[in-house]
């Protein structure tokens, strides 16, 4: 280290690190010369926990991996167990799973939008996004009993059916939401302060995203149209694994996958806002189907006596922060032999040293915020 280099710590307790991330920075004046993320402050041993619990006992814990999008983790684990034990899921429960997951994605993106702008000094959008997120959370509370830790999915179905009354409420919400999203765009998208702080800053190239296994909106912002919800893929990498594409009833639904071109902070914002609109589109399609069709929800298998035959399975889900994969290995007993999680945020943190090199110190939080990292998901 030379004389004029300064080594400083950001975090672990820092309001903008979205949890407990420690960044060891080397500064030369205002320019970041190197950055080393230190993770592990929120490690709870989620993977080891599975090994001395039954399949059902582990299910409520799964929601806590990423507390902002619990349904996705829950689905990834349920899907893996269902495939191993060959349990069928009825069409109606699949539609409800899609409906709840898309609402969850919307609430997660809303929270990201508010905190991202708060990182850059804008306070009003935070209150607006929290107000709209509150509507989704109270709908979830009505359906599942809690606001964040839902524990709503079971192996082969759901805990209980949705009522028409509840669907009507969701329908009302979907009707008012486009206007609210337009409001955010009016405030944010063309704001000169916002655009100068995000355009051409924190640029992720196509190559480096593929090298670092970045997925989700961060990848789509660079122009690569990879989304596990869509069964037709257009990947830059030919070796890309096409396993588990178009899961649930997504192939039956009509939606497009938004992408951007340059891969800077602004594009990541733009992709997420467009994704919110796609969520609304998917939600309204699900409501229409659920209102006109009935079916069985509760699965006939005995959840607490479930024994899974020997084998292994990886299920992939397109979570709000990238692909969330759950690997379950079973040895034929009532407990999983091994559970492994792959979450999008972990890879987004790994690219920080490359992304932050030779950028200005005040841009640090703008770039880090745009990646949408949630630390409990990184450490698990």
């Amino acid at each position, binding site marked *: 280290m030379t004389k004029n280099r300064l080594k400083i710590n950001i975090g672990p307790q820092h309001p903008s690190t979205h949890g407990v991330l420690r960044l060891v920075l080397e500064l030369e004046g205002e320019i970041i010369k190197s950055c080393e993320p230190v993770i592990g402050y929120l490690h709870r041993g989620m993977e080891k926990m599975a090994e001395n619990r039954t399949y059902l006992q582990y299910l409520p814990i799964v929601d806590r991996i990423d507390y902002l999008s619990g349904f996705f983790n829950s689905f990834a684990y349920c899907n893996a167990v269902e495939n191993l034990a060959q349990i069928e899921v009825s069409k109606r429960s699949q539609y409800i799973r899609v409906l709840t997951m898309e609402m969850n994605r919307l609430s997660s993106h809303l929270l990201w939008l508010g905190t991202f702008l708060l990182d850059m000094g804008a306070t009003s959008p935070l209150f607006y996004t929290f107000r709209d997120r509150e509507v989704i959370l109270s709908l979830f509370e009505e359906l599942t009993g809690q606001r964040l830790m839902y524990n709503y999915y079971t192996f082969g179905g759901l805990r209980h059916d949705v009522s028409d009354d509840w669907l009507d409420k969701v329908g009302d919400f979907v009707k008012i939401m486009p206007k609210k999203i337009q409001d955010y765009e009016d405030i944010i998208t063309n704001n*000169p302060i916002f655009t100068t702080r995000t355009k051409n800053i924190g640029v992720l190239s196509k190559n480096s995203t593929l090298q670092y296994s970045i997925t989700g909106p961060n990848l789509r912002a660079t122009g690569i149209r990879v989304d596990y919800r869509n069964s037709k893929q257009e990947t830059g990498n030919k070796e890309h694994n096409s396993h588990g594409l178009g899961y649930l009833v997504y192939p039956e639904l009509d939606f497009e996958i938004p992408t951007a071109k340059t891969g800077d902070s602004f594009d990541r914002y733009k992709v997420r806002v467009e994704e919110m609109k796609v969520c609304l589109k998917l939600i309204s399609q699900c409501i229409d189907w659920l209102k006109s069709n009935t079916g069985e929800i509760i699965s006939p298998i005995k959840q607490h006596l479930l024994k899974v035959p020997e084998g292994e399975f990886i299920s992939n889900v397109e979570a709000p922060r990238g692909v969330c994969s759950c690997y379950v290995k079973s040895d034929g007993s009532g407990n999983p032999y091994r559970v492994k999680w792959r979450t999008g945020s972990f890879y987004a943190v790994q690219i920080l040293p490359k992304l932050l090199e030779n950028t200005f110190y005040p841009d640090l939080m703008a770039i880090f915020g745009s990646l949408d990292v949630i630390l409990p998901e990184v450490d698990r």
Partner: protein
Amino acid sequence: MMKKSLKPFRDIIALALGHLTVFKHVFKRPVTLEYPEKKLPLNDNFRGEHALVVDNEGKLLCTACGTCQRVCPSFETIEIEKEKNESGKFYPKNYTIDLNKCIFCGNCVQYCPFGAIIMTKEYELADEKKSALKLDINTLKKNYSDSIIKKTVKSKR
């Protein structure tokens, strides 16, 4: 060159539009509640403090089968002392739930074969002592009668 000269005007328009959108909210009603004085209504699905169901004769529905222990994700949260009555049926002599360990997942309620345990709408559980969060059988019975009173009062309104 033309584009560059237009940029300040576009910025001013964008800023004005943003400020106008924020200003519109001045005339809207607040969406927040002053919490300790006012509370949001909770629905029946809400997962709060536990209660053991008592039937009309004052007997517990619980048969001390231990299913709730087996489905609970955290260990040693529910402890049951089993005993036989005169007619040869099992009943819980003591039943404790440790709320320090409970994660309020609702598995015990969902998988109870007799519907003997429910979750009330009580969520303000803070206390000075840790031991106050260990609910024994009498507290759990009392929780149930309290929740019934609340339900009937609510329906009268």
